[in-house]
C-alpha cells in the first residue's frame, strides 16, 4: 500500500517537472523573438560598457545599471550578426534571381528550337508536295505525248500547196463571170452557184444580195 502511494507520488512529480521544463522553453523562445524585434527597431548603438581602469577597485554596481550596460553589448553583438544575416538573405535572393533568369533563358531557347523545328518540318512538307505535283504533271505530259504519237500515226496529209492570190483584174473578171452565169442560167440553185465558183453557199447569197443592192442584177 505504501509502495503504491510512493510510486504514484513519484509519477506525479515527474509529470510536473516535465510540464515545467516545457513551459520554460516556450517562455525563453518568446523572449528571444521579442528581443530581436526590439533590437531591429532600436536606433544607433549606445555606448558600450565603460572600461575599468587597472587596479581600480571592483565596485559592485546595482543590478539595473549592470543590466543596462550588458544590454548595449548584447545589442552590438546582435547588430553585428544582423548585417551577416542580411548579407546572407541578399545573397540568397540574388541567387534565386539568377536561377530564375537562367530558367527563363532556357525556356526561351527551347521555344525557339521548337519553332525552328516546326518551320523546317513545314518547309520539307511543302517541298515534298511540290515535288509530287511536278512529278504528276510530268507523267500527265508524258501520257499525252504518247497518246498524240499514237494518233499521229493515223493522220494523213492528202494535199498541200499554196493558195492562188487573185489579182484585181482576175477578181473583176470573176465577178463578171458570176453575173454572166446568173444572167445566162436565169434560174439557178444557190448551192450549185456556190460550188461552181468555189465559194460557200452563204458567201454566194451575200454576194448576190450585194449585186442586187448595187443594181448590177435585177429580178
Amino acid at each position, binding site marked *: 500500500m505504501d509502495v503504491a502511494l510512493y510510486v504514484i507520488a513519484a509519477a506525479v512529480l515527474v509529470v510536473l517537472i516535465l510540464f515545467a521544463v516545457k513551459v520554460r522553453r516556450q517562455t525563453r523562445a518568446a523572449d528571444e523573438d521579442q528581443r530581436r524585434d526590439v533590437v531591429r527597431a532600436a536606433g544607433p548603438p549606445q555606448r558600450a560598457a565603460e572600461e575599468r581602469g587597472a587596479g581600480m577597485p571592483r565596485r559592485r554596481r546595482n543590478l539595473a545599471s549592470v543590466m543596462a550596460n550588458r544590454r548595449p553589448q548584447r545589442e552590438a553583438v546582435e547588430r553585428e550578426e544582423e548585417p551577416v544575416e542580411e548579407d546572407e538573405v541578399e545573397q540568397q535572393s540574388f541567387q534565386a534571381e539568377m536561377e530564375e533568369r537562367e530558367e527563363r533563358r532556357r525556356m526561351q531557347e527551347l521555344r525557339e528550337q521548337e519553332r525552328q523545328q516546326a518551320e523546317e518540318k513545314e518547309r520539307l512538307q511543302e517541298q515534298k508536295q511540290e515535288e509530287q505535283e511536278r512529278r504528276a504533271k510530268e507523267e500527265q505530259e508524258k501520257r499525252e505525248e504518247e497518246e498524240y504519237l499514237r494518233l499521229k500515226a493515223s*493522220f494523213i496529209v492528202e494535199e498541200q500547196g*499554196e493558195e492562188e492570190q487573185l489579182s484585181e483584174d482576175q477578181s473583176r473578171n470573176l465577178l463578171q463571170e458570176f453575173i454572166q452565169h446568173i444572167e445566162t442560167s436565169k434560174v439557178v440553185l444557190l448551192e450549185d452557184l456556190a460550188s461552181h465558183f468555189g465559194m460557200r453557199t452563204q458567201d454566194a447569197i451575200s454576194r448576190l444580195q450585194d449585186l442586187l443592192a448595187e443594181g448590177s442584177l435585177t429580178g
Partner: protein
Amino acid sequence: MSKVTFKITLTSDPRLPYKVLSVPESTPFTAVLKFAAEEFKVPSATSAIITNDGIGINPAQTAGDFICSYGMCF
C-alpha cells in the same frame, strides 16, 4: 473507222500555204492543231485554228463534232 478532212491554210505566211489533212473522226481537235502546227513548222502553243468566217474552234471537241457543227454529218 470513218475519217474527216480539213483544209488548213497558214495565214501568217503571205504565200498562204495550205495542207489537206485527213484524220479519224474521234481525234481530239488539240491533236489536229498540234499536227498542223508541226506540219507548218510553227509553235502549237501560240497557234489557233479558226474557220473562214472567223469562228474560233473549241479544241476540246473531237474532229467529228466540229465537222458536224458545220452541218456535214453523215
